[in-house]
């Protein structure tokens, strides 16, 4: 089933932002808690799914020379929708994510998928691709956010889970901690892939 393959590849094979090292700014900036990671991930998924779908629908109408500009306009329209909806219904989250919501426009994952996938495949496959990659991104942000939240403040989704004498290392919540946590996570993923490759080959 090609549709299922396109959907599932976003969860491991090209899982952003680990395999597809794109979209790092929101990944690093908003993942101080798990819940923020989910919020950012879902906002990105929404834009990615719709932009993929519409880019794919319009792929025969857009002249090649101006395709990048056209893709950006399509993406920007959906970002404005997300921006307004989040301000109206999830005010607190939108305040926290702040500048990173309008910046979904320049998230290279979205433009990358439009260029590499949606402009060459039919709308249904593009929809599956967008949904898979978007959910993969959401899960990555959630995992990274949870790890930083757990180590940095001793909570998980807002609940205290660490033992009482646990001394949170606030380093993890600070910007340097974001880089180090993502780097170590990426290293662990490479380790797993290498182990798999050795077992398989």
């Amino acid at each position, binding site marked *: 089933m090609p549709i299922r393959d396109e959907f599932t590849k976003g969860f491991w094979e090209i899982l952003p932002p680990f395999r597809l090292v794109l979209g*790092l700014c929101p990944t690093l900036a908003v993942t101080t808690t798990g819940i923020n990671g989910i919020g950012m991930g879902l906002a990105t998924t929404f834009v990615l799914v719709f932009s993929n779908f519409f880019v794919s629908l319009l792929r025969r109408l857009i002249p090649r020379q101006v395709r990048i500009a056209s893709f950006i306009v399509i993406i920007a*329209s959906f970002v404005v929708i997300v*921006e307004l909806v989040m301000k109206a219904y999830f005010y607190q989250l939108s305040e926290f994510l702040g500048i990173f919501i309008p910046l979904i426009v320049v998230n290279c994952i979205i433009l990358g998928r439009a260029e590499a996938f949606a402009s060459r495949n039919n709308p249904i496959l593009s929809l599956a691709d967008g949904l898979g990659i978007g959910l993969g991104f959401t899960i990555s942000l959630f995992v990274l956010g949870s790890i930083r939240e757990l180590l940095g403040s001793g909570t998980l989704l807002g609940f205290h889970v660490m033992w009482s004498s646990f001394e949170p290392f606030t380093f993890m919540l600070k910007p340097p901690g974001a*880089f180090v946590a993502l*780097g170590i996570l990426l290293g662990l993923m490479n380790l797993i892939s290498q182990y798999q490759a050795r077992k398989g080959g």
Partner: protein
Amino acid sequence: MGDFILLMIGAILVNNILLIRFLGNCPFLGVSRSMDTATGMGMAVIFVLTLAGMITWLVHHYILIPLNLEYLRTIAFILVIATLVQFVEMVVQKTAPPLYEALGIYLPLITTNCAVLGVAIINIDEGYDLITSIFFSFASACGFALALILMAGMRERFDLVEIPKPLEGFAIGLITAGLIALAFSGFIGLA
């Protein structure tokens, strides 16, 4: 004048756009493998970001506000930036071929550099006036170039040392960036 110096120090060292505000990280890791590309990218960003900061400010205050179209800010800014980058590319190619040689391939990449759109939005959100916006854009871009060049200097040396296999490439790059960011957080007391 004192305010401007404070703003410059703040934007370059204390709230470094790459390491503390997390804007523009994709090119940060992408082009920091060698000193030459990092310098080229840094200069291209300084040039475009300063111009973009000025033009988006003018667009916001003289087009969007009079027409009550502030909610279209994101679309308007990204279009302005994309056009500007294309325009700069053409002008530089015609008028200064040596500069084009040096910056050429980095210019198109800047459209999707979130530092440019990010600084444009910060200028508006913070309510800076035109002169402050230009200063802030320039200073932020200098901060970007500084961090990028520092990072490239360190990454060039990675080719010569043994790195554990799973950490090669981006992973060690991220951890190094974390250590540079840690060094930069030492500047927090300055502002």
